[in-house]
């Protein structure tokens, strides 16, 4: 501590001291600075000592890399696990203190204690601690239970091991006429007697205790009885508020232990649930019972007490322990989940149903879906129950279906011929299973696959299938799922539009699909937006082609395009000033309104739908759409009675003359009419007969819708400056309509709308005034402050902040990368040097040895020669 609290003055003094080591000027390399900038911090890069730093680096590598290299083939290594050894924050004293404390805290005596409270030993799956409670626990009161059956201490000290010498010296007379044998017998007798005495005493106390117990029990019974009878009514009333609160708090605190599951976990659970259900279903389809086959145990651990105590059919197959590369080898199917949290997983499996319900509570979004799931689950559970009840007990007796192995079935039927009824039930289950949908689906890659998949199913089942596809391929489950789902959305949208083209359009399914599409779009907005945009583009292109062929006149689209456009305001916000999907959609909508001539009733219906869509598009933003006003004006024109030789002014696509100008004129006068929203399938169907809508009912409904829309738009646009000019043509048309022709409800509505428009038009306005130019502020000379300055000029300051940030990061990354590369290169060089050195050393050694051997051989040879020479002589 004292070290840390050094004075600043000390530091300064130390700094001022010239370093004792003098630097060799030849070792210093100075980087020349191109421009001296005043005020810039002196960077550390302008001066370098290459020799010094190189030697430093080499030294460091000697310690680390070289060491590692030397150790590379060593299989065992020394790991210093001393407490705090690798902790640089601790100094030696602290380390020692800690170690000492740790040592003290270890209670060595407890190490081998069987009665350790922490561990619960079991035998046959039952807790040993419970087994130890014998039938009637005779717990003796005296504490030194350990020396039962042993000679008492006093005895030992007196009689054994020469101890008696001390006492017996008092009466040496006795010592003489007592032989060793006698003495021993005496000792034995004494101890026996003592033992007997003790036993007697113990029995006595036991009897007493028992008596006391029984007496006390009787007493207790009396007491409790009286108490209960007395307090009962009171107690119940009392238990209400306070107790409830307490209990609540209690439970709450318990609940804290559970963590809310993340989305991914939920998705995984859902997937697992489906997997499991699929497995079950497949098995049931094959005609196997739930626990038809006893799960085989591949591996029994030493601790496994094969007592069948926890016989659980759902236990997963065990696996052999094996290691590779220092890692535990896992079975392939779900290794990843097991490695992490085995127990957790099992829990999940067990609790998945509960979780399901929890989900439902947690997010309202999935309510509908959840409900359906529940229903399914219920049905499945029913199935399960059935199988439980019927096929469980007599699984072995099951006679298989025709397609199953006949031999086996024969043998089995011979064994137990009384399985007929079960067979029937079994068949039912199997049929149910076959009808039941699979739980796992491959994601259909192309549209035709999807159609093929959904073809034979009912609407509800189709929805379930799609839902399950989405769940099976939740992005958190696998890597490519997100992309797959995006592609799938494309096909789904196509399916959605194709449903609208069917006769009759499957609006219910479309209705439900909307929700699913919505969810997919939420998952990955940009690609899905592109997909939907592509669909709109295709439609627009189609429309464009029609216009080209028909000299700029289009055809009203079929229901699919209308519903596709309807999808847009559901998925994307309409109030944005400019939106990548909404804006093109509305342009397309208005284009159709402006370019499609109204030739028959269906055109009117489609036009009304488009107007209504426009209303939805702008209901929040209150933006102005001239095309809608024109179209509604044109519809009114179709309503009014025409005068001869006088052409009303209408806007394209309506024409002042032609066969279709009286489309909405009523045949007869109507007193009353029940107005209700129009049916989409009825009036927007392209397949219908042209004349099928040529009746007053449709005309009245269309007129009604038209008036509603005019009312809506007039209130939407009431704040426009030129509301009068915009709505004056409409007002003009209204004045020509004979209100009395219409049922009273519609008549009132018309009058109301007219009044409303007149009211809105009756406003004063202010002459336009441009905003005054703001006086230009004097230029200030404040410095430009950059929030995070990192010595780097930003080249393209005009670009966005994010881009700048990204560039900065890129630069940093590059720098780091370069540095890392350099280091690695140097490492490699170092290693190569080291290897070379090693090699050379080894060569040297070998050469030395060879030389020595040569030398030796030469001397031997010499000696031999000498001997040879000597011999003849």
């Amino acid at each position: 501590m004292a070290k840390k609290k050094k004075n600043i003055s000390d530091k300064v003094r130390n700094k001022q001291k010239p370093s004792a080591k003098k630097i060799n000027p030849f070792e210093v390399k100075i980087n020349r600075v191109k421009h001296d900038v005043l005020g810039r911090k002196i960077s550390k890069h302008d001066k370098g000592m290459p020799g010094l730093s190189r030697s430093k680096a080499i030294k460091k590598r000697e310690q680390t890399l070289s060491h590692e290299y030397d150790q590379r083939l060593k299989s065992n290594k020394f790991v210093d696990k001393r407490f705090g050894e690798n902790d640089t924050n601790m100094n030696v004293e602290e380390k020692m203190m800690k170690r000492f404390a740790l040592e003290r805290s270890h209670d060595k005596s407890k190490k081998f204690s069987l009665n350790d409270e922490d561990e619960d030993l079991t035998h046959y799956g039952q807790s040993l601690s419970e087994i130890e409670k014998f039938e009637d626990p005779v717990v003796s009161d005296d504490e030194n239970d350990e020396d039962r059956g042993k000679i008492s201490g006093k005895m030992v000290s007196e009689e054994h091991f020469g101890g008696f010498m001390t006492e017996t010296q008092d009466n040496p007379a006795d010592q003489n006429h007592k032989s060793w044998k006698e003495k021993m017998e005496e000792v034995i007798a004494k101890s026996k007697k003592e033992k007997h005495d003790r036993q007697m005493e113990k029995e006595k106390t036991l009897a007493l205790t028992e008596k006391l117990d029984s007496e006390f029990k009787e007493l207790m019974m009396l007491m409790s009885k009286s108490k209960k009878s007395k307090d009962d009514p009171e107690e119940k009333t009392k238990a209400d508020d306070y107790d409830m609160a307490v209990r609540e708090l209690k439970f709450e605190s318990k609940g804290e232990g559970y963590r809310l599951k993340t989305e991914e976990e939920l998705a995984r659970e859902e997937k697992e649930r489906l997997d499991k259900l699929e497995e079950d279903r497949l098995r049931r389809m094959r005609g196997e019972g739930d626990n038809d086959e006893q799960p085989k145990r591949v591996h029994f651990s030493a601790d496994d007490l094969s007592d069948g105590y926890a016989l659980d059919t759902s236990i997963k197959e065990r696996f052999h322990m094996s290691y590779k590369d220092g890692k535990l080898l896992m079975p392939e199917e779900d290794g990843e989940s097991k490695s992490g949290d085995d127990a957790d997983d099992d829990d999940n499996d067990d609790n998945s149903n509960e979780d399901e319900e929890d989900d439902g509570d947690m997010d309202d979004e999935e309510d509908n879906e959840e409900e359906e799931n529940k229903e399914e689950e219920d049905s499945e559970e029913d199935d399960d129950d059935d199988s439980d009840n019927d096929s469980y007990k007599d699984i072995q007796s099951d006679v298989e279906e025709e397609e199953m192995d006949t031999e086996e079935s024969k043998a089995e039927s011979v064994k137990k011929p009384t399985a007929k009824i079960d067979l029937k039930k079994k068949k039912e289950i199997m049929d149910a299973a076959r009808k039941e949908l699979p739980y796992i689906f491959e994601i259909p890659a192309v549209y035709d696959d999807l159609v093929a998949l959904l073809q034979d199913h009912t609407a509800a089942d189709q929805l379930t299938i799609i839902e399950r596809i989405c769940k099976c391929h939740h992005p958190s489950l696998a890597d490519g799922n997100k992309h797959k789902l995006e592609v799938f959305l494309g096909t789904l949208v196509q399916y959605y539009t194709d449903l609208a083209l069917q006769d009759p359009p499957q609006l219910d399914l479309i209705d439900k699909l909307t929700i699913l599409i919505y969810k997919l779009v939420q998952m990955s907005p940009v690609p899905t937006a592109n997909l939907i945009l592509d669909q709109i583009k295709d439609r627009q292109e189609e429309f464009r082609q029609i216009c080209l062929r028909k000299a700029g006149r289009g055809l009203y689209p079929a229901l699919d395009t209308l519903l596709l456009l309807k999808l847009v305001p559901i998925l994307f916000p309409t109030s944005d000033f400019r939106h990548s999907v909404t804006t093109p959609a509305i342009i397309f909508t208005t284009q159709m309104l402006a370019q499609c001539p109204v030739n028959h009733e269906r055109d009117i219906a489609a036009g009304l739908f488009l107007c209504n869509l426009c209303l939805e598009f702008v209901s929040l933003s209150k933006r102005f759409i001239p095309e809608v006003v024109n179209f509604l004006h044109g519809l009114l024109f179709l309503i009014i009675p025409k005068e001869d030789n006088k052409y009303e002014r209408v806007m394209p696509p309506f024409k002042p003359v032609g066969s279709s100008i009286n489309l909405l004129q009523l045949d007869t006068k109507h007193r009353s009419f029940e107005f209700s929203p129009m049916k989409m399938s009825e009036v927007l169907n392209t397949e219908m007969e042209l004349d099928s809508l040529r009746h007053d009912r449709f005309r009245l409904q269309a007129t009604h819708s038209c008036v509603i829309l005019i009312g809506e738009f007039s209130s939407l646009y009431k704040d426009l400056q030129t509301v009068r000019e915009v709505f004056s043509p409409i007002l003009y048309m209204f004045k020509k309509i004979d209100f009395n022709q219409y049922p009273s409800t519609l008549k009132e509505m018309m009058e109301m709308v007219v009044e409303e428009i007149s009211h809105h038009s009756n406003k004063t306005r202010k002459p336009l005034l441009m905003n005054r130019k703001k006086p230009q502020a004097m230029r200030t000379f404040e410095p430009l402050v950059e929030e995070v300055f990192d010595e780097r000029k930003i080249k393209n300051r005009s670009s966005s902040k994010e881009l700048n940030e990204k560039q900065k990061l890129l630069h940093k990354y590059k720098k780091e990368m370069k540095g890392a590369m350099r280091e690695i290169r140097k490492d490699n060089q170092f290693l190569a040097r080291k290897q070379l050195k090693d090699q050379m050393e080894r060569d040297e050694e070998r050469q030395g040895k060879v030389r020595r051997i040569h030398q030796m051989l030469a001397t031997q040879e010499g000696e031999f020669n000498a001997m040879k020479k000597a011999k003849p002589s």
Partner: protein
Amino acid sequence: MATKKAHGQKLDILNDIKASTNKCTESRKESNKIIDIISYAQSSDKDVLLACVRAFHKMFVKFLTAGEMFLEMIPTDTTDKGLSKEVQYKVWLMDCYQDTIDCLIQLLRSEYSSIQELALCTLMKFVETEGKNPVTKISSKKSHFPVALFTKLMKQLMNTETNLQDLIGKFQEYLAYDDVRFHVLKCTMMDLKEKRNTTPGNLYLNNIFAILERVSFPASPEENLTTFLTTQPDEDVQLKIATLKEHKRLFTTSWVTFLAFQLPTNLYRRTLVILHDKVMPYMTSPLMLCDFLTESYNIGGAISLLALNGIFVLVQQYNLDYPDFYGKLYALFEPSVFHAKYRARFFYLADLFLTSTHLPAYLVGAFAKRLARISLAAPPSGLTVSIPFIYNLIHRHPNCRVLLHRTEGPSEIHDDPYDPNEPDPTKCHAMESSLWELKTLQSHFHPDVARSAQRIDGEIQTIETDLSDLFETSYDDLFDKETRKKVKFVPVNFETPKGLLGSKSDRIKLCWRLE
């Protein structure tokens, strides 16, 4: 089998035609084969006909260049026995030639376009060859152009029963030759004059129009013409055919006569479209079209729009004093103008007419206000033009700034002082009004339009906007522009729908139900 047989037969015929052609061209003795080929040409098979036309082409071009048919003077009596064999042969060959020409002219109306084209080419080749090697002696002072042959051809092209516009399209390449052009114009003029008092069918008018439309004049203003398909007449002799003025005279007369007919609407429009550009510059006096244009201008609607252009040229270049020009222009500013096919042309011209800074401010103000008013019902494609248009007007005439920035007068007005029903721009009180319409358009659904209209709040531009790129904008362009951008960020709704009609902001429920 039958088809195979027929096919074999056809092959035989084709081979026969080929062989005969070769023989004919080789020696005179085999010339009788020509008759066979002419008879084959009566067939209706496409391949046979094609082969015949090719044969004709080959034979007669050879005969013409070789002078096989050349006679100093055509004998008055061809049946005269006293004629030499040579002359007799030539006369016979001449007859064959005439038959061939008739045959080819008939083939011009064939149902196969390839035969039509080939026949036309062959005939024109005959015209060319005959012009270079006349069959009779022609003095060098006269044009060598085979008028008789060509007249026949033109008669066929201008016939009243078949639509030959496509063929005439092919004919265009020959119109680059001055002599061809001259004779075309001459024939056309003669023909038109013949039919002046009748009411010819639309097909005839279409054919004539197709021919006249394609007549083009050389770019150089040189008086003497030198590009000839046939032999050029001598320099020193001034022939009508070689003077541009004569061409133009014929051209003018043809057009004027043509326009005197009652034209069908479609043709009327097409005529008006090309009039200012392809006709007026080559007329001796474009003012001759004045009546026609004035009449057209008074019709109203799209025709007026188109006539505008011609009138403008007359006013601008030929000093036509058109009374109440701007009044009529003002009347053309109708809401339907945004939907017209010729919208781009109209705005281009209107912009041109209103470019002048010498126009009185009240007039310009009236135009600006009117345009703003009709913009209220305009499609966004029109608005992308009209709003900058208005800004340009105000920019050119600073007096009109009161329309956007009124500091004097009452602070609250109940009614718009502007009278939209007043036809006279000088009396419509536009200058007492303000452009509230632009204020309305600020909340237009299209982001570009809204943004453009928002400029009235601040300082409007200091330079004129170039409108030339904007005239042609259509819905499709706007749609493309919106969808072309790469989508980087897409906000999505955060409220989960409960179904198709189940979102909170849903309005479809008002009028529809899911059944």
